[in-house]
């Protein structure tokens, strides 16, 4: 790694060799590019074939392989093939795709911990089956030397298995004991160790019951639960990590007129920063040079771009749209508005950690209960049998083995795996294990507007109401700009089959619009005050034809697909719906009316959003927050459970429990239903394992439990619990 690092040429001569730039240049110039894309809508064999063959046909692509389980495609291609090319090609094939960070992927592709669990599980399974075979012979009446031989062979298999496979439990139990707690792992470890030790003693003296099969079966079933639990989390974590944009936190700093790429953390007060169109502002500051428009939607929820010029204050996180800006930094790092937002999140985060999952609550009752029960049984039998330590110990251990939480260990992970698998197929990624439980308790849903209920991408309304000549002229002007409104207009005109008119001497005035000459007249497309009209109350751009009054082109931010279904579905489940947006009242009212949301707030600042959510929580409501912007981040964290779309800003996705992988919002309504069902299943599972214990424990306590009964109770309850969980799929 170090060699290639030094050998790599810097991407641009002007770049001072900052580590980030060098690393980027190195990443950008491998012999073969390995690209990774997320495919949230791929679900069948046909999708796989279409995507693989479609991508393989592209020039420069060597190989494409779809992973249907993770809904990803790995592409090997020439270094000049970019993710944008592939995303465009997939879009034409009808598949939505997002780029994933290959660096983050390298760390998660081989899930080492998961593989370790599987290996231990495999060994435990092998040992369990072999010991079970031998045990069946003993249970069905093998006597004398045969019985002894079988017990010795069982011991020979069980001992190494327990040492190898049960290690995770021993480690966790040790850690729990050191911290002075009694987790689930302490009774588990104790049961496994005591069962093995007692059985070994019985084998050595000969004649008694051995529990080798129970010790190993216990390990196997509990490992299965742990593995499921781990896999749910690992899949969610890796996908969420990889969804993070390939956005390196860098800024272009001006040092004596030369540009240097530096990490944002190294920016100081008074530094000059160059911000190109399309880039995000790295720090708070004041514009020194240049004019442009800023997209503040992620920060404040405003859907209209805001004009900026020399002297205007700007905040970190805003996106520069049209012209290059030079900004003097007034607050960086700790003091910037971005960081203040992060602090809001931290405060809200600490409030959330208080949630105790159902499994924890069960463990809290269970762990001391089991120990007291087993110890009491031991003492009572010691007293009854007038000091027969061997007998008392035997019965005490039998109680410990029979109560051991096989089914309890599977009860939650099996259900969560089934439920998150089902939601994943719908395009929802559960990031947090307890998110489903919290989701089931929700009674109020708070939506953000821009980028959540709407797509955050404006589209021209009613092009047909303009004359074809106007549209052709506007399209010609719009085509030369990268402003989102202009791009949307040009795309819509092209889609309507309008050929752009001939316009000469096109040039863009950053922050104002585009100007050119058409049939001897000066024509303009841009801001209202620039073309000389009063602005309309809605998002619009204005066309000055050089004659007559300028013509407005109005835009509308389209509803996200499934938004109406999601709102209707949540309402049908009896949940209260609120809309809290940072956007202007007119836009919010219009959208609320369209979706039938009666309770809406406009112009809310980030802190006000979080406060509104916290206020709802104080009233005893359980809030589901759905949002995508930086301004929603604090509210997302303050909420009982939160959802953000994949297009959301990194910080918002990190703060939320559930990520929507596709464009569609409708799965949210499905998710609340599935969550409630999942919690019902978990509680049923607790009931089932309690029921088995209720039958088996008294038998163990009066001393008539046999290893066969322990094995039956353990397997039967584990299988019942798993089957019950599968009903969710």
């Amino acid at each position: 790694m170090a060699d290639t690092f030094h050998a790599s040429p810097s991407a641009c001569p002007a770049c001072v060799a900052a580590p980030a730039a060098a690393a980027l240049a190195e990443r950008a110039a491998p012999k073969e590019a390995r690209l990774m894309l997320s495919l949230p809508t791929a679900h069948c064999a046909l999708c796989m074939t279409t995507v693989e063959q479609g991508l393989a046909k592209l020039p420069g692509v060597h190989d494409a392989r779809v992973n249907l389980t993770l809904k990803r495609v790995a592409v090997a291609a020439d270094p000049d093939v970019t993710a944008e090319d592939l995303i465009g090609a997939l879009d034409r094939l009808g598949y939505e795709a997002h780029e994933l960070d290959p660096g983050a992927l390298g760390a998660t592709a081989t899930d080492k911990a998961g593989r370790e669990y599987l290996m231990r599980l495999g060994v435990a399974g092998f040992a369990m089956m072999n010991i079970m075979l031998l045990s069946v012979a003993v249970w069905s009446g093998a006597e004398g030397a045969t019985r002894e031989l079988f017990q010795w062979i069982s011991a020979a298999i069980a001992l190494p298995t327990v040492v190898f496979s049960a290690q995770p439990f021993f480690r966790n139990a040790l850690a729990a004991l050191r911290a002075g707690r009694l987790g689930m792992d302490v009774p588990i470890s104790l049961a496994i160790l005591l069962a093995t030790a007692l059985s070994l003693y019985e084998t050595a003296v000969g004649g008694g019951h051995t529990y080798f099969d129970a010790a190993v079966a216990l390990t196997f079933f509990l490992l299965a639960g742990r593995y499921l639990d781990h896999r749910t989390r690992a899949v969610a974590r890796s996908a969420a990590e990889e969804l993070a944009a390939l956005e390196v936190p860098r800024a272009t700093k001006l040092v004596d007129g030369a540009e240097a790429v530096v990490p944002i953390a190294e920016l100081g007060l008074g530094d000059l920063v160059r911000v190109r169109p399309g880039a995000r502002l790295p720090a708070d500051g004041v514009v020194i040079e240049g004019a442009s428009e800023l997209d503040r939607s992620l920060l404040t929820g405003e859907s209209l771009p805001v004009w900026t010029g020399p002297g205007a204050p700007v905040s970190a996180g805003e996106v520069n749209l049209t012209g290059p800006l030079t900004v003097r930094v007034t607050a960086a790092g700790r003091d910037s508005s971005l960081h203040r937002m992060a602090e809001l999140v931290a405060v809200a985060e600490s409030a959330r950690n208080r949630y105790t999952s159902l499994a924890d609550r069960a463990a809290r009752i269970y762990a001391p209960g089991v120990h007291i029960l087993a110890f009491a049984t031991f003492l009572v039998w010691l007293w009854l049998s007038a000091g027969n330590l061997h007998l008392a110990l035997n019965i005490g251990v039998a109680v410990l083995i029979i109560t051991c939480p096989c089914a309890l260990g599977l009860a939650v992970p099996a259900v969560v795996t089934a439920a998150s698998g089902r939601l994943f197929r719908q395009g929802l990624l559960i990031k947090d294990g307890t998110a489903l439980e919290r989701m089931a308790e929700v009674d109020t849903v708070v939506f953000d507007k821009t980028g959540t209920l709407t797509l955050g991408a404006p589209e021209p309304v009613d092009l047909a109401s303009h004359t074809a000549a106007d549209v052709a002229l506007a399209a010609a002007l719009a085509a030369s700009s990268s402003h989102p409104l202009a791009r949307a207009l040009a795309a819509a005109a092209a889609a309507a089959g309008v050929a752009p008119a001939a316009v000469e001497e096109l040039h863009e005035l950053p922050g104002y619009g585009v100007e050119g000459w058409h049939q001897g007249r000066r024509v303009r497309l841009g801001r209202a005050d620039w073309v000389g009209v009063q602005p309309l109350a809605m998002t619009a751009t204005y066309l000055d034809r050089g004659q007559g009054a300028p013509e407005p082109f109005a835009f509308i931010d389209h509803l996200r697909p499934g938004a109406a279904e999601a709102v209707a579905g949540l309402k049908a489940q009896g949940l209260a719906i609120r809309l809290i947006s940072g956007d202007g009242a007119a836009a919010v009212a219009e959208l609320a009316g369209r979706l039938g949301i009666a309770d809406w707030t406009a112009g809310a600042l980030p802190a006000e959003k979080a406060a509104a959510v916290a206020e709802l929580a104080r009233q005893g409501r359980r809030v589901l927050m759905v949002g995508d912007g930086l301004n929603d981040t604090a509210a997302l964290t303050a909420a009982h459970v939160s959802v953000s779309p994949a297009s959301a800003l990194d910080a918002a996705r990190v703060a939320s429990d559930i990520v929507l992988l596709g464009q569609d919002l409708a799965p949210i309504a499905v998710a609340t239903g599935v969550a409630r069902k999942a919690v019902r299943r978990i509680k049923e599972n607790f009931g089932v394992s309690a029921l088995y214990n209720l039958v088996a424990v008294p038998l163990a306590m009066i001393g008539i439990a046999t290893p066969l009964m322990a094995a039956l109770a353990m397997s039967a309850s584990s299988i019942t619990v798993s089957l019950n969980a599968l009903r969710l799929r």
Partner: protein
Amino acid sequence: MTVLAYLIPISLILGGIGLGAFLWTLNANQYDDPQGNASRILRPDYDEHPKS
């Protein structure tokens, strides 16, 4: 009962082979995409030249 002297080692060895095979598939990344593999097997593309 001397037959047990053969049968028990045989059963253990057979089981051990199974375990070894499992560990091999595990290390060969064969559980990375169960759903994709289930679909892939139905495709005729690789019938002649299997692809890893």
